[in-house]
């Protein structure tokens, strides 16, 4: 650490150049933080998927429905500990812009699967008892100021009710939280029995099934057993782990990871030149000073370390500033991606990349500094 003032002073030898180089790195890492953050947010559903869960969807396309009867058939497959079902309701509140992630479910079945939700017992009981009852996530409730006892209308873009209209009324009987999966707190869950009785078409069919298995190592075998059960029927199934299901869903949107990686590759490619050229210039201008260091007894390896340390300091400091800026700006994207904080893994990844960048750009000037001959440098050759 005693070399710190020396490294620091060398870094600021040409202030304008250092400031601009620093700012280019800051900007690159700001972009890195934002883009990787968005990418990670999209992938977090995949990364955090429950290993005990299988998703059963119609083999023709996962938007096609399945018969309700499949539920009990799958419950009797050995190794299956619980089955729940969901459908896409496509609801919005008051205005099409206020889209609500709403699903009809069976409360008792849902609770056996949904271990990540927390809901007070009395509220859950009220939900089971109330035909038009709904439970909503804490974030969603806060967004629209909903309280227990409120009667809330949702408009479905898909489902029409017997007697006409697509406006469905629900009584809010409970509010749940999901400490580990904040995005779940945007959900709106209501009774499947109410939904199925009231809808005009599609009766007796559900969107997809969620299967809890006792032993995740048996997942592949159980998935095959489920699909075998319905082979050659009009509604063949395709059973995947929750992780595979999330992945294939993301791939439908497009390869976000691919685009982000390409853009960042381009950004760092140009940064490599900007930083490398700046460090190289700085090294060239300091040849006499580096020779002095060697004269007073710094070894070749010592000088190499000093120059490398300088580039590491430059890159890491700038990267930290850029990542901090990204972390500050990230909450602004909340509405678009639903995640509030920049994942910590992205910060760690950023620091690692900064060190790699420093080594890649610093190695050449550091090597030249190491090779520098004192006699030639002092003589100005």
């Amino acid at each position, binding site marked *: 650490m*005693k*070399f710190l*003032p*020396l490294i620091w*002073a*060398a870094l*600021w*030898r040409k202030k304008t150049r250092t400031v601009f180089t620093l700012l280019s790195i800051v900007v690159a890492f700001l972009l890195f933080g934002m883009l990787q953050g968005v990418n990670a947010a999209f992938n977090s559903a995949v990364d955090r998927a429950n290993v005990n869960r299988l998703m059963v969807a119609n083999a023709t396309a996962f938007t096609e429905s399945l018969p309700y009867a499949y539920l009990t058939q799958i419950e009797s497959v050995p190794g299956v500990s619980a089955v729940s079902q969901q459908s896409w309701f496509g609801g919005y509140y008051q205005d099409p812009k206020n889209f609500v992630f709403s699903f009809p479910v069976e409360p008792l079945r849902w609770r056996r699967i949904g271990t990540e939700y927390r809901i007070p017992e009395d509220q859950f009981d009220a939900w089971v008892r109330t035909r038009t009852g709904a439970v909503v996530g804490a974030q969603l409730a806060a967004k629209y100021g909903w309280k227990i006892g409120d009667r809330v209308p949702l408009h479905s873009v898909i489902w029409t009710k017997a007697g006409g209209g697509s406006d469905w009324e629900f009584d809010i009987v409970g509010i749940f939280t999901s400490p580990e999966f904040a995005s779940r707190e945007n959900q709106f869950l209501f009774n499947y029995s109410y939904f199925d009785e009231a809808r005009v078409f599609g009766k007796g069919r559900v969107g997809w099934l969620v299967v809890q298995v006792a032993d995740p190592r048996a997942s592949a075998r159980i998935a095959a057993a489920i699909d075998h059960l319905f082979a050659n029927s009009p509604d063949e199934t395709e059973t995947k782990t929750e992780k595979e299901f999330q992945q294939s869903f993301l791939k439908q949107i497009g390869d976000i990871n691919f685009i982000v990686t390409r853009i960042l590759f381009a950004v760092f490619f140009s940064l490599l030149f900007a930083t490398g050229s700046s460090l190289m210039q700085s090294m060239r201008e300091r040849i*006499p*000073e580096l*020779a*002095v*260091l*060697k*004269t*007073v*007894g*710094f*070894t*070749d*390896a*010592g000088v190499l370390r000093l120059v490398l340390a300088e580039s590491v300091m430059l890159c890491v400091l700038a990267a930290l500033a850029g990542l901090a800026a990204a972390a500050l700006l990230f909450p602004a994207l909340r509405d678009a991606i639903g995640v509030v904080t920049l994942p910590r893994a992205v910060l760690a990844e950023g620091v690692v990349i900064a060190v790699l960048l420093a080594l890649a750009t610093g190695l050449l000037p550091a090597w030249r500094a190491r090779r520098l001959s*004192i*006699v030639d440098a*002092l*003589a100005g050759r």
Partner: protein
Amino acid sequence: MAAIISLRNVVKRYLRGKQSVEVLHGIDLDIETGDFVALMGPSGSGKTTLLNLIGGLDTPSSGEVSVAGVRIDALGGARLARWRARNVGFVFQFYNLLPQLSAQRNVELPLLLTSLSAAQRRRNVQAALAIVGLSDRAHHKPSELSGGQAQRVAIARALVSDPTLLVCDEPTGDLDRATADEILGLLQTLNREQGKTVVMVTHDPKAAEFATHQLYLDKGELVSRSTKAVA
């Protein structure tokens, strides 16, 4: 007194382009502990080359260089660097201070290579600055110092690790007469009172008068040697 510096049949060749140029042709030289030697000679005579060999900045093409009993021609890169850090202080014509560091930090440089604590380093730096009479300029940058002051800082840097040998290359070449005399006086004091052996390259006969001995080099050979008692 015993010879602190001893050169035997030292030859130095350089490659300039494709040509090999022999700069020193078999130098034999002994310098005693406590001597103040002025190395003189015309441009291109090999003065600086000889000085660099004595200071361990360069190694001979053949021959032996021993300083304080150590065969420095046999030392390789890192060991030679460590040897320089302990045994030699350097003073250059253009001071060669690091422009972005304060006087104090410049003087401290050689101490960074020792295991001294920050407090010990600070004490030694203050002592060195006191010897050259610049205690009040510790926090100034080189650009804020006059030429004479900058050279004093450079001398303090050369002294701070308490080497036995000071190697000076035209230390007054960039200074006016009065300032030059001050610097030379300082070197003389260090030689007399602290027992430092001083080897100084100069082309200025007035500067050479401060030395106890003068060596003349021409075309890569020692041509004469004179000892002059100084008042």
